[in-house]
Structure formats: structure tokens, C-alpha cells
């Protein structure tokens, strides 16, 4: 069914994804497509910018009729700033990864937020460097283990907390598998006049593989044991995976099992949370950090 601009949803697609089947990033691209279609975004006024990484490849996979700029690793915020200031008629969608934003890009991320340049800034957060085959990023959980790189002894950066402290005016968190919530937040973000940060937990089905993760799921472990002694992974082998989805209610806390059997816990904010209260936003994020769970929803905004 064509939208107000007479465009079909398929018109908002990009070229076929080359990411791993089941990668959370692809789900996000799909939600961007739906958002743009629903909101009747004129594609010629949209610009897509990204850094380098699997996540940063995704602008090729949505809004094929919008200009795109796949810049350099970790420094996209400055490029997006320049483009947005050059022509304030444009709608800027910036896509990055946790390595791109939290490791190499942390400085530019913080300064972008400080300038509050109008754009939707999406972090496709999987806690690893996907494209370089699974090193820890700055958002990897403390104590997490990876097959190859072993134990992560550093605390995880919370990019939402970083944003709020840094003066952000729109900060939300979601999970790639939660289509409904990602949708809603994307729509809110596009209409925000300032930098809108969306930190979306987006599992890497290939490298977030920690069979002996200290957070791993009992059942998951057991049903692996029998084959354990046989277990082998050919060099560079990537297993076909199903996308991980999660549909849950406001206020609810759920456990989502990752492909390696480890789990993450998500809690959806409810009416009780006032997103205009900066202090409250900071407080709940801190608590969530302590309880090792991810709070999802609109954490903070300022008109």
C-alpha cells in the first residue's frame, strides 16, 4: 500500500544485506525502513552516515534513494556534524557500532552530543568488534569471556549514561529483536530537534560466543555437553542463525538467550519513569548497571 508520497515500503529498501543471517543489525535496518515509510520521509532529504564496522555497513541496506556516507572508523560524528550544518534542510540518520562509538569514537560521540547537532544517532551495540572478528569493545560486560580473547576485566561503558551526563537531549535504549519498541523510539527520535541517541542492543550471532560465559544459561550449557568433546569450529566458520526476537510488556523484565546459551536481561521502562527527569534517568541507569540488566525505552529527553 503506497504511503502519502505514493511510495511502497519496498521503495524504502536498500541493497540486500551482506551481514550474517540472524544479525541483530539487519532487524534494525528493517525498522528504519518501516519508520521512514510510515512517516512518509522524503528520501532525497535524508542523509545516512556511518563509521566502519558491520553496523556501519547497514546504511547500504535501507533507504536506497538517500545519499549515504560511509566515512572512517570512529569519526563519523564530525562528518555528520559538517553535513547537517551545511544544509539544515536535511534529516540526518547516523548509524554506528559500539566499537565505532564507544572505543575509537568516544571523544567525537561526546562532543557531538555536547553540540546537540540535530540527528538520529543509532548505536548498534553488540559488545564486540564484529567486522574484525570478535575483540571486546568498550561496552563489553566486565567479566565476560570470549572464545579467543579470553576474559574482559574492564567495566562496560554505558553509552546512554555517557550521553545524559554529556548533555544529550534525547536518550533511549532498546533491543534489536523488539520490533515494536525500536519502531516507536525511531519515530520519536526523528521528530526530535537535537541529537537523539538510540543505543540498541543488537547481538552479534557470530562472535558473541562464550560457551563458558559466567552468565551462561544452565539449560544452554547442559544440552551442549554431550557434543562438547567433538566440538570443533573450522577456521572462519559462521553458523546459520535465527534472529533473536523479544516481545514483552512495559515494566516487565525478561531473559533473552543468546545463541551461545548465555543470556542478557532486559527491563522495559513503564509509566513510572519520567523521561524529563534527568536525575531519575541517571539513577535508574546506575541501578540497572548494578543489577546487570538493560533498561529499555525512552530514558531521557528535554524539549
Amino acid at each position, binding site marked *: 500500500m503506497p504511503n502519502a508520497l505514493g511510495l511502497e515500503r519496498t521503495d524504502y529498501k536498500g541493497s540486500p544485506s551482506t551481514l550474517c543471517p540472524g544479525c541483530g543489525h539487519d532487524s534494525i535496518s528493517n525498522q528504519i525502513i518501516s519508520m521512514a515509510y510510515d512517516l512518509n520521509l522524503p528520501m*532525497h532529504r535524508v542523509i545516512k552516515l556511518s563509521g566502519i564496522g558491520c553496523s556501519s555497513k547497514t546504511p547500504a541496506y535501507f533507504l536506497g534513494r538517500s545519499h549515504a556516507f560511509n566515512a*572512517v572508523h570512529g569519526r563519523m560524528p564530525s562528518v*555528520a*556534524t559538517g553535513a547537517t550544518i551545511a544544509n539544515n534542510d536535511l534529516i540526518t540518520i547516523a548509524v554506528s557500532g559500539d566499537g565505532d562509538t564507544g572505543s575509537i569514537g568516544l571523544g567525537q560521540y561526546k562532543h557531538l552530543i555536547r553540540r546537540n547537532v540535530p540527528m538520529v544517532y543509532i548505536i548498534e551495540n553488540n559488545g564486540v568488534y564484529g567486522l574484525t572478528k570478535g575483540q571486546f569493545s568498550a561496552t563489553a560486560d566486565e567479566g565476560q569471556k570470549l572464545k579467543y580473547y579470553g576474559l574482559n576485566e574492564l567495566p562496560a561503558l554505558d553509552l546512554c549514561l555517557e550521553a545524559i551526563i554529556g548533555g544529550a537531549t534525547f536518550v533511549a535504549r532498546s533491543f534489536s529483536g523488539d520490533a515494536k519498541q525500536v519502531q516507536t523510539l525511531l519515530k520519536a527520535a526523528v521528530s526530535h530537534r537535537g541529537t537523539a541517541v538510540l543505543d540498541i542492543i543488537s547481538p552479534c550471532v557470530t562472535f558473541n560466543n562464550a560457551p563458558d560465559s559466567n552468565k551462561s544459561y544452565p539449560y544452554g550449557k547442559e544440552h551442549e555437553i554431550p557434543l562438547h568433546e567433538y566440538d570443533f569450529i573450522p577456521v572462519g566458520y559462521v553458523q546459520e542463525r535465527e534472529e533473536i526476537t523479544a516481545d514483552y510488556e512495559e515494566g516487565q523484565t525478561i531473559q533473552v538467550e543468546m545463541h551461545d546459551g548465555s543470556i542478557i536481561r532486559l527491563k522495559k521502562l513503564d509509566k513510572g519513569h519520567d523521561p524529563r527527569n534527568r536525575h531519575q534517568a541517571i539513577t535508574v541507569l546506575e541501578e540497572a548497571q548494578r543489577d546487570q540488566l538493560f533498561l529499555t525505552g525512552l530514558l531521557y529527553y528535554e524539549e
Partner: protein
Amino acid sequence: MVVEFQTNVQAHQNGQQEPIVNDFALMVATKNGSGSQTSNEVLIRSLFRMGIPVSGKNLFPSNIKGLPTWYTIRASKDGYIARRATTEIAVTMNESTAAEDIQNLPPGGVCIIPQEWKWGHSREDIVYYEIPVKETIAASNIPSDFRDRIANMVYVGVCAQLFGIPMDIVRQALLDTFGGKEKPAQMNFGVVERAFNWAAENLVKSDPYRFEPLNLTAGKILITGNEAAALGSLFGGMTVAAWYPITPSTSVIDAVLDYKHIRRDPETGKETVAVIQAEDELAAAGMIIGAGWAGARAMTATSGPGISLMAEFAGLAYFAEIPCVIWDITRMGPSTGLPTRTSQGDLLFIHFLSHGDTKHVVLLPDSVAECFEFGWRAFDLADQLQTPIFVMSDLDLGMNLWMSEPFTYPTEPIKQGKTLNKEQLEAFIAEHGEWYRYKDYDGDGVAYRTVPGTDHPRAAYFTRGTGHNEKATYSERGDDWVNNLGRLRKKLETARKLIPQPVVDYDASKPIGIISYGSNDPAVKEARDLLAAEGIQTNYLRIRALPLTQDVIDFALNHQRVYVIENNFDGQMHQILRMEIPQDTRHMISLALGDTLPMTAQWILAQITRLEQQPVQEK
């Protein structure tokens, strides 16, 4: 040098004082933070108003208060504005350097020094004038807060008296300096006059140096290269400037801030120029690349360390073919080096900036006039070539005041290059049945681009620093890669035609050629006259841009001997010339100064006469 001072020396030795008029240099030694720059500017502006060709060089420390600063003012009836190694007159206001400052005076020199120091007359062969700085200030009844900052006006008055600068001229110069503000001008003038009169009553003129009115500065302007660059950029239609402060480039952006109002929208009165202070140079580069990609004319100004930090982004702009302009106001490197000393040491690095096979266009202005011209021309070239354009000025050109003909404003309309708007894109597709972002339709290596916001379903394309084919889609195919790099090379050939061509003074009869570039020009010109006086006739080619053009290579080959004169340590232009000339270049000799100071005619003269006397061998 010998050559030059004979006259004075003789004059001194045979005691007779035949006057030396409008052809000497005066140096003021102070501590930085004392505000002496204002007094020195008053002196320069006074001479300028007297119609005497003048130039000033500020030698200041990388510090805010208390370290030695030297300001040299050269008056030259012959219109020479290059730095001169030696100055006949030293105003020594800094006790910590006085000894050395006096030592450096030539025989017959003059030393103006505060009475209160009770400084001994260590030298027989110079003239001392001791002046009552403290007294004069104390005597002139001005609020205590202002005494300190006004002290330097004392030597202005004394110099005016000794060397003949009329008081009304100084008064005018003061008003120029304080932007017409009467009150401060008045307060300062009071001190100047008092000193002037004191000198008249108490000093016996016993030196030969004199300023006399000429009319050689009529219609000319005094301006710094950085201001000229800012003005040129604004006239070039710049709408985005992103920067991070760094000496000696900061004043480029300061000037943009001062002048950007000239670009206000006539209707709305709204500012049209955005100036963004970035968090560092990586960000500044990213911002102008983003802006250039979005269709704006965007510029940044920086210096060596900033250029190093921009290396990755420079490669992106080169490979993704994004127009933008990067000014490098060079200072002395490597590393942090000497932030307040001049050099041309970034040339080689800029030309090949970033990893992989890259080669950038670099413009090399020689004067404030060219800083202005290249200021707007750089944007045309950036758009025409769809690539970052580097402009390499330096601290000497950028921060010192230079005399110049008024700037000639761009007459041609802005050159947008091959940027297709909606209609043009429509027409293009109608004609070619297609439009591929990176396809070489015209055989000049330059493809057609669109900018975001173009309301056409086929206007969009994907910009990336990764390998791509003509359609701008990602490709790992070797043939696509080679095809693309081949086109970029072709584009560089196109650049050779579009960039400013060398300025050549050639006469087949002369066996010796000089090649130079940038701010060395005044010194080279003066040196050529001095050499001619020595019977050494020279041709001269001034390179105005990289990549090198055939004319340069021909010039280098068409001489028995060629001297490549530049102000860095490694002779970087000489190396680039070697790279591009396969023939024997043993006759092409590198004269690389790189001693932290602006080039001088005396140094060039000394080098070339030496080498022309002895049989030439590889330097």
C-alpha cells in the same frame, strides 16, 4: 652582508656622517606580554603613512608573558620587504637579552636603551641613546592601571624624534591602530609626545639614519596573510569553517570571525557563514568533509600537528572525491617543534598525505595578495577537481604585516565544477541514458556528482572510503580498483592544467636559474638584484602549486645550474623536483635554510656567490 654594510661602515669609520635615508632596519627587543606589538605597529604604520616601503617581522616566543620578543622594522626606499639579518638600530627594552642584542649590532649601529638600567657602553663602534622610560611615564599623569601597558610608547616618541617621524603622522598611526578610538589614542599620544620632546631637548643626534617622506605606499594596504586568506575564502563563497586553535593558523579563523558579517544575507540579514570550533583537528577535518559532501564550500586552517592528525581524513576526501580546502600555516617542525617560528617543512608530507597511493594538490601563495587569491581560487579548484585542496602558507606570511597592492576581487563567477542539480541530472540521464557517480564521461578523470537534497529519485549515491566501481557500489574486484585509481591519476593530470602556473622570468642568455616558492619570494627578488650587482645574472621560476607542471621541469633542465631555494631543512621541493625529473639533475642544487627564521637575501647571496666561485659539486 659584507656587500650591504660597506657604506655604513665606511661612513662610520671616516667619521663623516653622510646620512642613510629610508634604507635601514630597526629592531625592538622586549618581553612578550608587554604589549609592545602596539607600539611597533604604530611605528610601522607611521612609516607606511610617510610613503616609505616598510615591512615588519615579529619574532615572538611560544609563551604568554615574560619571554624575549624581537620586532624588526625594515624601511627600504627600493621597496625590498624581505627580512634582513642585520638591523642597524636596536631598541633594547629587555634587560635579559640586551647584551646579545647589542653584540649583534653592526659597526655604526645605534642602541636605544633605558636610562634606569645604567648600562655600560660596552662597544665603541656604536651610538648609545639612553632614555628615561619610567620617568616619562611617571611624569605623564595617567591612571596607574594604564602606566605599565603604555610604557612602550616612550621609545616610539624617541624614535620619532631621532629618525624623523612627524608627530601628526604618529597621531594618525595611533588612530589607525586603535581603530579610530580617540580616547586611548589620545592617552598614548600624550606619552609619545612627551618622549618626543624630551629627546629633542636631551639627545644629540649622532647617527646617520633618517626617515624621509616618499610616495611609494600610496594606494597600498598593510595586512597579514592570514587575514587575506580569510577574506579570500569569504569572497570564494565559503559557508562552513571548522577549526581547532593552533599557532600560527589561529588568526585565519579569527579574521573569518571578524569579517564574516560581509556575507550576511542581504534580505534576511542572517549570517550565512558557520564557524565551528571543533574538539580537535580530526574533527575539524571530518566537519569540512561532511560539509563539502553536502554541497557547502568548507575550509579549515591548521598547522603541522593538525595536518598530521588530519592524515586519515585527507585520504578519505581524496579517495571519496570530496571538495574541501585545508590551509596549513606552517611552523617549525617536526612534532610540536617551535610553534612561533617559521618554516616550509610540511610540503612533502602534505603532497603525499595519507596511506596508500595518494597525491594532493598544494597551492603555494607567495604574498598576502596570493593568500587572498588562493583563498577563493582553492574552492573553485576543489569543486572542479572534487578533491581536497591544500594551501601552504607559513608563519611569516600569515602573521606578519605585509605591504600590498589592494586585492583584485574575483571577477569570474564561482566555478561549481561538475555538480548536477535536479534539472541538470535529468538532462544528463536523458543524454547518456545513465548517470554513474564515478564514471569518467569527459576523459579528464573528473566525474559528475550530486549533493544531498537533490529532489530526484536517481540523485542519490553511496559515498565510501572503501573500494568501489563506477556506480559507487562496493567492489573488491581488482579491475574496478585499477580503473578507479587510473581515473584518479588522470584527474591529477587535469589538475596540472587547472592549478596556478609558475611565474617565470626567463632569458635564454642566463645560465643560472633559481627555483623557489611561497614567502621566499621577496628575499629571492632582492637577492637577484644583489647577485646582478655582483655580476651574477639569474633567471627565476616561482612554483605556485603542486603537482609540478612541465614548465617547471623545462626550466630546471634549461640551465647550466639551478638553485632550489626553500625554507626547510631537508630541501623538500628539491626532492619533489628530483622525483619528477628523470634526467640528470646534478646541476640542480638544494639551498635549504630552515633556521627557524624567514628567508633573507643576504643568505641567498652568500650561498650562491660561494657556490658560483668554487667548482660546483652535489650538495
